[in-house]
């Protein structure tokens, strides 16, 4: 196929470049198109340039990679030495050779974080995270950053994503450590509800470390997860029955659950391991509660009846104390009692006046109800002052449960 010759005036094809156009008689003829030889040559040259560029680019990339890795290595060393400023410089140099290398950018972000340049750190991390949203390490660093900047909601969210994110290597250990860090964060920030949720999750994958277990037990006590705390301390005690901390912990958990006898037992065991005032006080309190509790199993009906009357007396006394905390020293009119409380107080007075009746289950029940009613009605009045009678408070709490 040869070139095509075209008349510039009428666009018709003509035979020869020098010929006159047979259609319009013009002589303005140009050649259009290219011979296969030229086309082949063009594609051949293209292939050659492609090959040369490929070789050039490959060598360039190799050199770039070497230089980048060199700077990255130096930066890692500097970061490990704590020389953050120079580490940042080296990371930047590394990145200048490979902008897209996530490890370099991550390293830079870490160094910037250590150098407390949070705004830039966050930009790099958010950038990286947009490319890899499930990365554990990126979410973890963002969590740390947010925590350090006091953005706790974001920090918790990033921690959770990091916990469920993708990690390389020892995954389970990392997840556990992250959970513990998150627990620490929630503890220090006083977010007990979130802390409780996290502790429940942690209980499922309880680590072997006894120190951590003790700490978690204590946190469970703090977040009122008494059941779980008790069983955790029980597990610890199975391994070491003389674990003082675990004994105290279990004692406290059982105490809070209203199992005062079990609690006393644990406190007594703890006392055997290490005698101290706090434990003795706890034992004494347990004893006083147990002695006051009319619902305790194994006591006679007569004793239950007696205790129910004592309960009314002490509830009455507590109410009067709340009405007049200054006692006899107070001069002037007392606070008027609400009608319900006045009525409950009157019921209590009636129950206590005259001779005590016969000890029956019904009378015990009735007394207990009077005491409870009085206690409930008095509780708003007593809220301001500290509980006047700790054993009474616990027994009443147990009864209300």
């Amino acid at each position: 196929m040869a070139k095509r010759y075209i008349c510039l005036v009428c666009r018709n094809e003509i035979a020869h470049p020098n010929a006159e156009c047979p259609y319009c008689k013009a002589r303005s003829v140009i050649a259009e198109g290219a011979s296969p030889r030229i086309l082949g040559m063009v594609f051949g040259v293209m292939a050659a340039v492609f090959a040369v560029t490929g070789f050039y680019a490959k060598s360039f990339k190799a050199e770039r990679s070497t230089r980048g890795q060199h700077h990255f290595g130096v930066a890692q060393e500097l970061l490990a030495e704590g020389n953050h400023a120079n580490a940042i410089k080296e990371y930047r140099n590394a990145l200048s050779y490979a902008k897209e290398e996530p490890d370099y950018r991550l390293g830079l972000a870490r160094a910037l974080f250590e150098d407390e340049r949070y705004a830039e750190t966050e930009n790099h991390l958010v950038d990286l995270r947009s490319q890899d949203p499930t990365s554990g390490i990126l979410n973890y660093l963002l969590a740390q950053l947010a925590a350090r900047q006091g953005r706790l909601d974001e920090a918790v969210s990033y921690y959770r994503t990091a916990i469920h994110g993708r990690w390389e290597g020892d995954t389970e250990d990392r997840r556990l450590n992250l959970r513990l860090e998150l627990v620490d964060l929630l503890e220090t920030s006083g977010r007990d509800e979130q802390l409780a949720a996290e502790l429940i999750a942690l209980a499922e994958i309880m680590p072997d470390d006894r120190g951590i277990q003790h700490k978690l037990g204590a946190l469970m006590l703090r977040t009122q997860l008494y059941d779980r705390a008790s069983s955790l301390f029980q597990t610890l005690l199975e391994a070491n029955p003389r674990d003082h901390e675990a004994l105290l912990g279990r004692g406290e958990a059982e105490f809070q659950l209203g199992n005062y006898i079990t609690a006393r037992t644990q406190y007594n065991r703890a006392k055997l391991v290490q005698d101290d005032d706090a434990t003795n006080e706890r034992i004494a309190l347990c004893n006083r509660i147990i002695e006051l509790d009319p619902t305790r199993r194994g006591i006679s009906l007569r004793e239950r009846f007696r205790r129910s009357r004592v309960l009314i007396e002490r509830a009455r006394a507590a109410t009067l104390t709340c009405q007049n905390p200054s006692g006899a020293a107070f001069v002037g009119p007392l606070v008027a009692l609400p009608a319900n409380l006045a009525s409950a107080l009157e019921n209590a007075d009636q129950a206590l006046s005259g001779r005590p009746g016969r000890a029956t289950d019904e009378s015990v029940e009735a007394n207990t109800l009077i005491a409870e009613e009085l206690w409930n009605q008095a509780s708003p009045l007593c809220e301001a002052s500290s509980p006047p009678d700790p054993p009474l408070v616990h027994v009443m709490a147990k009864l209300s449960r």
Partner: protein
Amino acid sequence: MNTIREILGKLSTMGKSGPVLDEPQRFLLLAIVIGIFSGLVVVCFHISIELLNWITIHSLAPGAKYLTPLWPALGGVAAYLLVFFVVPTARGTGVNYTKTAVYASDGYIPFRSVLGKFATSTLSIGTGNPMGPEDPALQMGAGIASLLGRIFHLTREHMRLIAPIGAAAGIGAAFNTPIAAVLFVMEEVMSAWNAGVLGSIVLSSVSAVVVSRWFLGDEVLYQVPEIEVGDYSELLLYAAIGAVGGWLSALFCRYSIMLRGRILKLRERRRLWLPAVAGLAVGIVGTYAPETLGAGYQVIDGALHDRFAWNLLLVLGLLKLLSTALCFGCGTPGGLFAPTLFVGAMLGGGLAGLAQLVWPLSTSSVAAYVLVGIGVFFAGVFRAPMTSVFMVFELSASYVVILPVMIANTIAILVSRRMEHDSVFQMAAYQDGLDLPSIEDRRETPALNVEDAMQRTRELVVSDRISVAEALKTIESSDADALLVEVRYGQWRWIGKRELLRAKENGDEDSSLHKAMKMWPVVRTYPDLPLDQALRKLAIYPALPVTSRVNPSFLLGTLTLADVHRAYGITRQEPKAETSSVGPSSG
């Protein structure tokens, strides 16, 4: 083998049996070939700049930083000497060179200029001069396209179009933004929105970017972090950045062109050493602020990531502005694209930092301001509003920042244009004695349409039922030589004065037109068509009916050559009295 020959043959031209690829298709295919070639060359160009940069600036030991000024000085003078003695065609801006090729030399760009631009720009940018590789890449792409056009023996009209196709490929590959490249070429090189060549420009740009990414990876020039734009009160801040950016860009254009003009007045031999002086100054600045050396993409990346304090950003922007103006004025090879983006980014980031100190309401991330700054300064210097908006969009891959960018860029262009009427390329072109069209000029002188010239009367329109005598009376009462006749729904005919007179002589004076005369068909025209198109029809027909597009029998007016002349302001010379002589008057 024969099959390959056959395919190549079919590709190269049309067979006797009919076209395998018609002309537009072959043109598109050529656009892809141009894109691939341009992409390959730009990849090599990019690598060469980087390698030279490593060998020179990056290889300096920490204790030898005082040697930094030597490299830009050496690079600048070496590049300029090459331009002066070996490749004078590599002189000047690539945009103007390509534009000249399009409008003055039928798309001819010597291939020597491609090699020259490659070598000189590599020497200059690679040694730390604060210029950008995009403008040289644009010229290289155009040069490659021109060479291929010549090899393929393209027609003159196609040769004129081929250079912008290569230019788009070059800039697309260099900046890794295919859409912005297409728009830049349409706005700056073509200076017109030419739908006919758009497809080819897009193809070449995309194929060049694909080649570039193939070899260099998907790395974008900047990693733009996630952007959030705060509340709408912030638009005031963006508008302020637009105003400041527009003002600064106009000053940049004015003083860099002024410096260039003064230097151009020097004798050529004396100009030889000026790039060295500029390079030395740039190097001294670069010793203390290395961020200002080279194209500066990494520094923009740093600004996007909130790496610098606001006052440092402003200082860096100012230093870059001065050093770029100096190098541009002294003729150091390289483009203005990258430095413009650098200055804009620093300006946007710096003003954002300042705003965060004093602005009582919430502000967006610094990255948003940096991007807006990039668009603003670019728009102010190059007056390419579409490119400036789409470039930011392509860089950020986010629509969030588009509204602020559009507002700020518009303000920047308005302010800049008020201070300096022309873009930096136009000013440079005027300085070089070139009168090249610009899209703004074209906007100011809109093309005339048929509706601007047509007569909105029925003076030249008659019914085919009237007599020849009536028709003659009508035609004699007007200046026209022909009348228009509607014969059926939307079917128009014309009759000439001569034919009417002949019919009268033949005694058909009282006969109706449709019986007495042969009438010639005439095509309709529409009021929205360009006058040029109607003029071509008037070469065949003496008058044209202007009808509605939806109802061809609804006549809106008529158009004659006299109407066209009137629309263009050409007044017909009335013939002088018979006694007056024809030709130039004596005395």
